[in-house]
């Protein structure tokens, strides 16, 4: 089964590559299209070499994705390695800015108010640091309700469930979105993350943007809904939700699947959307870039507030923070090689690790940016 899925992904990328090279050869030098690095994903030239062992640190949400990237990196570049310390986004930014690590991983972009942007520029020898969103993790609204497998929610109702305005599963607000389903008269048991986490932060940001004002609690790494009970880490949350009838939680897709939670579809106004690689890819494709040029800071409003039909809006976007310039030649070469592998071959294994691979068009933006690192 796994090989089949891999096969499908590789096939898709190959097909996409063919399509793009076909386009590319129209307006570029004919015949050279096939070798153009940012046109074909599997055939992208990775210039291995440089520093043998890179150091990176940051977001723990990226940990499994980076592990996948490292595997792909080592396959592609013999003898190359990267050590990733998942100490949290704050630690990643701090140690990147201090020049301790070659790049940082973070769940939220560098903050201008906290002086992080400035500090990063200083670290990069007065060149701006770039944000590269390489890892996207879909977040599922997972629930366990005997007799109900399919459930449609929207931002507003989700917000009301998680701040206690909706207390019963057969509440008219839920029933209105699920005509035809028989909803039981049971209490909704909200389970949230008791530790501080980027998942909670992104979930609350989503509710803030998508709930049409129903979520007034704000965002942040601590859950602020005021209802339910908290469990530790994704594993604890998913396990707890799966063990009680009537429970609902927000958790990364892979944990929801592992614990056999039912996953709610989200209706952002264009019909119910199921959580799949394609629907998440659509949301990523629709994302607007806030940053300038190759600094790919995402405008989260455009993802969370998406009105594109068939796009699943609830996802966790995480960045790698890299120097645009200012690395020594050795480091630059290795960083570019690693990121190139991460944006191409590395993405193939992401679905199995519970993340969403970036869609083709977005991948090209990433590769352009990576190529421009000097």
């Amino acid at each position: 089964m796994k090989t089949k899925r891999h096969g499908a992904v590789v096939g898709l990328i190959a097909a996409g590559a063919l399509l793009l090279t076909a386009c590319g050869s129209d307006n570029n030098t004919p015949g050279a299209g096939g070798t153009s690095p940012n046109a074909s994903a599997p055939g992208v030239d990775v210039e291995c070499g440089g520093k043998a062992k890179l150091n990176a640190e940051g977001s723990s949400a990226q940990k499994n994705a980076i592990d996948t990237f490292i595997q792909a990196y080592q396959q592609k570049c013999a003898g190359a390695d990267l050590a990733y310390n998942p100490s949290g986004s704050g630690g990643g930014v701090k140690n990147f800015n201090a020049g301790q690590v070659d790049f940082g991983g973070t769940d939220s972009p560098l903050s201008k108010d906290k002086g992080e942007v400035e500090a990063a520029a200083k670290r990069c020898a007065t060149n701006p640091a770039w944000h590269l969103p390489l890892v996207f993790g879909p977040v599922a609204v997972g629930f366990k309700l005997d007799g109900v497998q399919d459930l449609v929610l929207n931002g507003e109702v989700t917000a009301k469930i998680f701040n206690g305005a909706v207390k019963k599963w057969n509440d008219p607000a839920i029933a209105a979105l699920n005509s035809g389903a028989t909803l039981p008269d049971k209490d909704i048991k909200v389970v949230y993350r008791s530790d501080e986490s980027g998942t909670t932060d992104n979930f609350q940001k989503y509710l803030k943007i998508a709930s049409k004002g129903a979520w007034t609690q704000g965002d942040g790494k601590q859950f602020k809904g005021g209802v339910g009970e908290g469990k530790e880490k994704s594993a604890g949350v998913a396990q707890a939700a799966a063990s009680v009838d009537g429970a609902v939680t927000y958790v990364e897709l892979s944990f929801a699947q592992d614990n056999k939670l039912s996953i709610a579809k989200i209706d952002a106004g264009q019909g119910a959307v199921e959580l799949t690689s394609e629907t998440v890819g659509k949301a990523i494709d629709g994302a607007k870039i806030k940053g300038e040029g190759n600094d790919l800071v995402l405008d989260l409003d455009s993802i969370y507030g998406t009105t594109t039909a068939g796009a699943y809006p609830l996802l966790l976007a995480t960045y790698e923070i890299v120097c645009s310039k200012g690395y020594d030649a050795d480091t630059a070469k290795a960083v570019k090689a690693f990121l190139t592998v991460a944006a191409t071959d590395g993405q193939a294994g992401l679905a199995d690790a519970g993340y969403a691979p970036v869609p083709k068009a977005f991948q090209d933006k990433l590769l352009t940016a990576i190529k421009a690192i000097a």
Partner: protein
Amino acid sequence: MNDRIVAKRPAGTGDAGAREGVPAARPATEAPIPPTTEADQNAPHVRPGDRIFRGLATGSGIFIVVLIGAIGLFLLLQAIPSLALDQVSFLTSREWSTGDVNNMRFGILDLLLVTVVSSAFALLIAMPIALGIALFLTQYAPRKLSRPFAYVIDLLSAVPSIIYGLWGLLVLAPVLTPVGEWLTDVLGWFPLFAEGNVSIELGGTIFTAGVVLAVMILPIITAVSREVFDRTPPAHIEGAIALGATKWEVVRTTVLPFGKAGYVSASMLGLGRALGETIALMIILSATNAAFGWSLFDGGATFASKIALAAPEFNDPRSAGAYIAAGLVLFVLTFVVNAIARSIVAGHKEYE
């Protein structure tokens, strides 16, 4: 940026202060030396081994005192800038929100109550059981059996606390669910057994946590009590037997009075461990936004588990300082518990 530098600075001075503390402390301890030099004049000479050993022992003593003082000082200095930013009362508030450094609202009341109640509940379960085991091992069990039996109990303390946590949540909690439901049904009128602010079904209650803690502190209390009971002077026991006492009367009239102080201090040692237990409670206890209502079926967090939950995402010294302040309270709490234990032991000198 400026704030951060300011927040850092006290830490530096704190370290320096602690370092200065070492040489400052040394001359003070040399004060008792003159009397011994007088003794030197009387005795022909002091063996160098004697002098070296005394130096090492004194050094160790000073080292640990300075170390603990430095910990206390460090916690205090790190906590002060955050405490100054606290918008609510640190000691009496139940809120805990440190994400926004411009509006930090944190108080330790619930943390303190949950910590104390869960540890006290654990002690309540563990103390009688440990007493029974220790008496069995020293008075009733055949010699051949008591050694291996003691090893098995000591093994309990070698189990990592994360294992206790997972066992408590995944194995023990479902078993305790019917017990908890029965207690809330039948004895729900009593505040301790009232329905709590988390679901009993999920098992993340102080009740579950207390039972797991009891298992965790059992080996410590048992091991120390066993040693103490074992040292009951044989003359006392033989005397009691000669007077016609039964086994139970021997235990009641000689072993228990002799070992009481040791048993109490063993329990306090166990309590200290329960107060500071982190990982197991982090896994078991459900967090909640509701206030602690004096029920064993409430959720919440202890000092240590709260700190452990937040530690991976510390990125601002000011919000980290809030947790350090909580750690300082735990430090003081443990200190007080130990002081009480010492005074109890000191009050029972008559058998020495």
